[in-house]
């Protein structure tokens, strides 16, 4: 019988969860080993470790299914990752570049990445949306907001 494999994204997720759990546990035990400090961290870390083993074992032992990662799926995953990277850069640029310029650029590029074919509609929409956000949404913020142009 051919058994299953762990996909790259699943392996990455499990590795990330274990790394986060390991680091938080290490950090908490370094800070203090009293019961009050570890009352949630320690049991949670143990359970995460056991669940990881269980999930990996279950995935590896169960019969393999039809391979689903066609080239379309792979390109879709990479497009999602590209949009996520763009979104992360946008989040970073909000306070470092300016809310107005960062939003305008992200919405314009985002509309194109999401499949819009128009030439003038995306930048026009991005402009109107940015002005609406800065003058509308932004005016309700109780905090100062960095802008470059507006």
């Amino acid at each position, binding site marked *: 019988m051919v058994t299953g494999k762990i*996909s790259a*994204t*699943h392996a*990455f*997720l499990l590795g*990330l*969860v274990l790394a*986060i*759990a390991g*680091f*938080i546990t290490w*950090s*908490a035990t370094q*800070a*203090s080993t*009293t*019961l*009050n*400090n570890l*009352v*949630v961290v320690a049991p*949670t870390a143990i*359970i*995460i470790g056991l*669940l*990881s083993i*269980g*999930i990996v074992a*279950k995935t590896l032992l169960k019969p393999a299914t039809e391979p689903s990662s066609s080239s379309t799926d792979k390109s*879709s995953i990479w*497009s*999602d990752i590209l*949009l*996520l990277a763009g*979104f*992360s850069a*946008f*989040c*970073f640029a*909000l*306070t*470092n570049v300016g*809310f107005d310029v960062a*939003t305008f650029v*992200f*919405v314009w590029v*985002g*509309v194109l*990445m*999401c*499949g*819009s074919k128009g030439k003038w509609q995306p930048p026009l*929409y991005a402009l109107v*949306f940015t002005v609406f956000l800065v003058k509308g*949404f932004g005016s*309700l*913020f*109780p*905090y100062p*907001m960095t802008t470059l142009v507006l």
Partner: protein
Amino acid sequence: MIDQFALSQAFTLLFTDLSPWLWVIPGLLIGLIFGSIPGLQISMAMAVFLPVTFGMDFLQAMLFLTAIFTGGAYGGGVTAILMNIPGSSSSIATAFDGYPMARKGQHNEALGLGLCASVVGAFVGYSLLMLLINPLAAFVLKIGPLEMVVVVLWGLTLIATLNDSSMAKGLMAGFLGLMLSQIGMSTTGIMRTTIGNPYLLDGIPVVPAMIGIFAASELLRLRGSSFLVQNEAQRNISFALILKGVGQTFRHPGTLLRGSLIGAVIGAIPGVGSSVANLVSYGEAKRTSKTPEAFGKGAPEGVVAAESANSSSEGGSMTALLALGIPGGAATAVLLAAFSFHNIIGGPSFIRDQTDIVYSIILGNLGQVVLLAFLGLLSLRLLGMVVRVPLAYLVPSVLAMCAWGGYGITGTIAGPLTVAAFAGLGWLMRQNNYPVAATVIGLLLGRMMEGEVVRTLQVSGGRPFEYMMERPIALALFIIMLLVLIGAPALKAFRSRRASHEPN
């Protein structure tokens, strides 16, 4: 239970002239707007508009601020249904079934269900407050850390039932949330995992994390589609279908009533409130449903359970404020500030000496609920238009609003970066069929859980089980929880096994 004379005075105060009602509709609209925009919170709206109440009399100010509260609680549910963005932690469970309904083209029905359940829930919550304010206040005073542990534990048990593919994945997602909640300064003042970053001192900001993991991660996956609702014929905003949804709510009277009662009781507990109430109510609705497998895939019962509980918890949260002068959350803290502006101190003396004002506030809120029903119906046509916007434009726009919302909550770069980090985590989890909702629940309740467990250990001198024997409310809650969690499924399994063995 009701002081008849004070009640008649309350009617006189409210209905002899229209001045107390003048600010109710603006308040409801402000609440709806703030509640339906990710990152703008109800408490923020109430704080922003608090100075406006300086020139009002006390009753007018109370009705205006509570109208924002009522409108905001409902507004959060609308975005949870249409865009999978819970406006606040009290609408998390609304998204579980409301959004799948919207994706199936049942957005009109889901919005109608949400509105009706909210209205009924809020009505039940305030009616109970009216009848039981004194006994509820006495109950709240008896709530200690151990009782809170049991209630939070009840909310956490929902994690086990949220699994898209396997229970192990649901538990893993929930425990990841619990682990992430431990970042930052502990209840006892110990620094953990701050990696020298001052933004992490208070831990991970929950609302930006929730926006990222729920909304932003889903938007990334929607990128390839053309519209939120694929079938063009189903994209219409139909008043008749919204009303059909309103009618559907009453097909689940048990869920509606149970959700309203759970919300009112849990909402009365300071510090727990609507964020736990909607989860407990949803969990109970799923456990007791004849079709639990439909939950998470667009079950109307799920929307009814969540919305009725979060709306009725509003009435519950007013109990502690009016009867004890204790704010149960950020929104009621702003109301307490309005009390002090008008030289009024909440608590037993307020109820004893100014019963007519207390009844006026409660009756005014009941009136607001009726107004919300009309205003909600009118605004749903506008809010529902979101399903007609092409996703190529909707996805980047809502992503941008998510990042802005993160900033609106924290006021620093930490908010948008949290949204981005959790968007990535949520995308990875969704790719591999892990329920992101379980992580949010763990994150939301983990810090609360730790604080209450530590306080219980300190109060009990390290003997929590012996201490429980001295706490009848905690013991009763614990036994009920065990009966509901273990007893009910065991009985169900026993009955089905016996039925399968019986000859036809």
